[in-house]
């Protein structure tokens, strides 16, 4: 579930292959001077480090759940 949620969040925020961003740059052009103005707009874009943390966390939890299952089975026997 965690792996799917992480992957879904990463895809939903643009499948960005770089670091996580809390803003994106939009270039506006000033009508009189013709100057390009990069404007920061607040937007969360999930990066690969959070994707990695989510997937590793999911793998760790999956591993732990197998251990827990094994212990439970032994108790029942």
């Amino acid at each position, binding site marked *: 579930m965690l792996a799917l949620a992480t992957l879904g969040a990463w895809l939903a925020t643009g499948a960005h*292959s*770089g*670091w*996580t*961003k*809390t*803003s*994106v*740059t939009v270039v506006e052009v*000033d*009508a*009189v*001077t*013709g*100057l*390009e*103005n*990069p404007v*920061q707009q607040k937007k969360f*874009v999930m*990066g*690969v480090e959070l994707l990695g943390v989510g997937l590793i966390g999911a793998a760790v939890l999956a591993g732990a759940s197998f251990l827990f299952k094994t212990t439970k089975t032994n108790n029942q026997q």
Partner: protein
Amino acid sequence: MNKQLILSIAASFAFAGSAFAGSQAFDFKDPKGVNNAVFKLDAPLEAINGTAHGISGTVNYDPEKPESLAGKIVVDAKSLTVPNPTMLGHMQGAQWLDVEQFKEITFEATKVGKVKHEGANVTADVTGKFTLHGVTKEITVPVKLSYLKDKLSQRVPNMPGDLLVIRAKFNIKRTDYGINPGAPTDKVSDEIELTLSLAGASPKK
């Protein structure tokens, strides 16, 4: 003798005055907040792109004599920003730019060369003192100047005057300015590309 001395002093003042006769002072503190400096440097995974909008300064410019350009552009170091908050903290911190101690990045023009007229625009190489991270070095920057006569009122209503647009793109090395020289260049490149997009206003009185 006294008369000759007075005449020569008067002539000297007249000559000095004529050198700045057509020069206008342009204020680069843009009320519209468009003026910006963009910096770009390579790093693993993705290039670091950032901007700064805290720009001020004054440039004296005579459209008839572009080579007489002189002045200073100031960038507030705290206005430098990148989209990643962790990276922003590192960049502004003591190990990198140390913006608490080195509050300003400045360029003071001292000499203009290779002036070329391209229609309404002028290109030139501007030499000046560039100060970053408390280190000052003389550098030469290729610039494009556009003098926009009577265009100020189109940007700022009810304010007649002229605009001077300056565009520049040049590279510096962070190690030349003592910016974390110990950091490996394969992690954060030594070369920084700077792009300046500036408009200065000269209101008519």
